[in-house]
């Protein structure tokens, strides 16, 4: 189970990679493994303004549909259209080729409330323990 140190995480299993005032967003390795084979990804529209916690995307796996929430507030500046043709990238490479969207941060102070890799690892361990 990969949890890269340099990323920030949410309790809903999204990750955030920050560069300047832009955040790249996706779902974690744990999330993709829980979802199972992804067959269809619905991405947000470009330039959409989202508040933290708004629905950013939906992911359909063979098993179920899941919502992906915006981990931070901001405007959508890029979406990973490769996922339309190759939804399996979410399973194969959740932190790299499977990124979902880029957002221009409207409130960078929100980053402080996200989890570190160590905190997220603890959350995953707890969730696994409940199974």
């Amino acid at each position, binding site marked *: 189970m990969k949890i890269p140190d340099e990323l920030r995480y949410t309790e809903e299993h999204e990750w955030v990679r920050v560069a300047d005032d832009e955040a790249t967003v996706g779902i974690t390795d744990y999330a993709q493994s829980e979802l*199972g*084979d992804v*067959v*269809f990804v*619905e991405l947000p529209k470009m330039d959409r303004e989202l508040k933290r916690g708004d629905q950013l995307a*939906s992911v*359909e796996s*063979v*098993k*179920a*549909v899941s*919502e992906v929430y915006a981990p931070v507030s901001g405007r959508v500046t890029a979406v990973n259209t490769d996922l339309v043709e190759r939804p399996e990238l979410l399973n194969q490479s959740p932190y790299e080729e499977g990124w979902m969207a880029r957002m221009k941060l409207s409130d960078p102070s929100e980053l402080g409330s996200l989890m570190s890799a160590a905190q997220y690892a603890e959350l995953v361990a707890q969730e696994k323990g409940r*199974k």
Partner: protein
Amino acid sequence: MTAEAGEPKRTPLFGRHVSLGAKMTEFGGWQMPLSYRGILEEHRSVRTKAGLFDVSHMGEIAVRGPGAGELCQRLTTNDVARLSDGGVQYTILCDENGGVIDDVTLYRRFEEEYFFCVNAANAAKDFAWIASHAGAVVVEDVSAETALLSLQGPAAEAVLSRAALLDLAALPRFRFLCADIEGYSVTISRTGYTGEDGFEIFVESSRAPALWDRLMEEGQAFGLVPVGLGARDTLRLEAALPLYGHELSSSTTPLEAGLDRFVRFDAGDFIGRARLLEQKRTGCRRRLVGLVLVERGVARHGYAVVVRGAVAGEVTSGGWSPTLGRSIALAYLDTAALGEEEEVEVLVPQGWAKAKLVSLPFYRREGRSRKP
């Protein structure tokens, strides 16, 4: 095996699933493997090679003694007289209203000895129903001492023939036989729930791990993989095989579900016959149809289906078809609202998705018509 209320039960193969790293899920009161290495991969293995399923959660109910055949006929919609020793039939237990109590397979061992294989979640209910009509016929729930493995896929015959030291090419579909594997007895039935050729193998619970190991070992050269309930569901959906609690319930009849060929009005009286005959005469107000989504999205259980702007029914089972690469669904639609329409819309989370009606099943294996 049957379940009781409380903690989910474990099959004799629970330890195998855990050591294989399966994701587990609860189903019908049982802790069952959902998938081992991924639903898509397991699905494709069954379509192209072979897969091994633990379906020991299914219940088995033995019926024997003078009058056993008559009892089975009175309780089921199919024609029991068509069974000879070693024959299996898919059939339906109906209540007086023609509602489905369960869909089951009925096995005739001898003239006065039958057994039912029933859905896990219905096993206790089925047993009570059968026993309440039994009179002097002996009815016994043998679920606890019976495990069930299912070996499915084009290579299933080769794998099982080697494991059982038998040429199973001679066993036709819907026939079964008793055999020995490494000194213990098994009942091998050429049946399944995947749309592929395959076998279901009943074995005494304590022998199930040894049988599982033997089949996995023999299957290695053929690409046999363990398969969980996730792929069991996608496989049966492609083959348009109904699932109790989805397509079937006490408020649906076999005719609405399109199971007419398993309802034999000429076979003699059975519980529910009068109501079903009346429904056959007057026609069904709704019927089960197959849908293929032509727009992006995945149809799932409970989603509304719209015909010309009005809700006409809902999806009972839906999901991704790995074989078609599209979302497919079974849905009950109001026959009057549907009319001659061949295009409908399904309300998926992303909005309305167009779907077209298709004939069932969604998937039919090649060469099937040539099989006996």
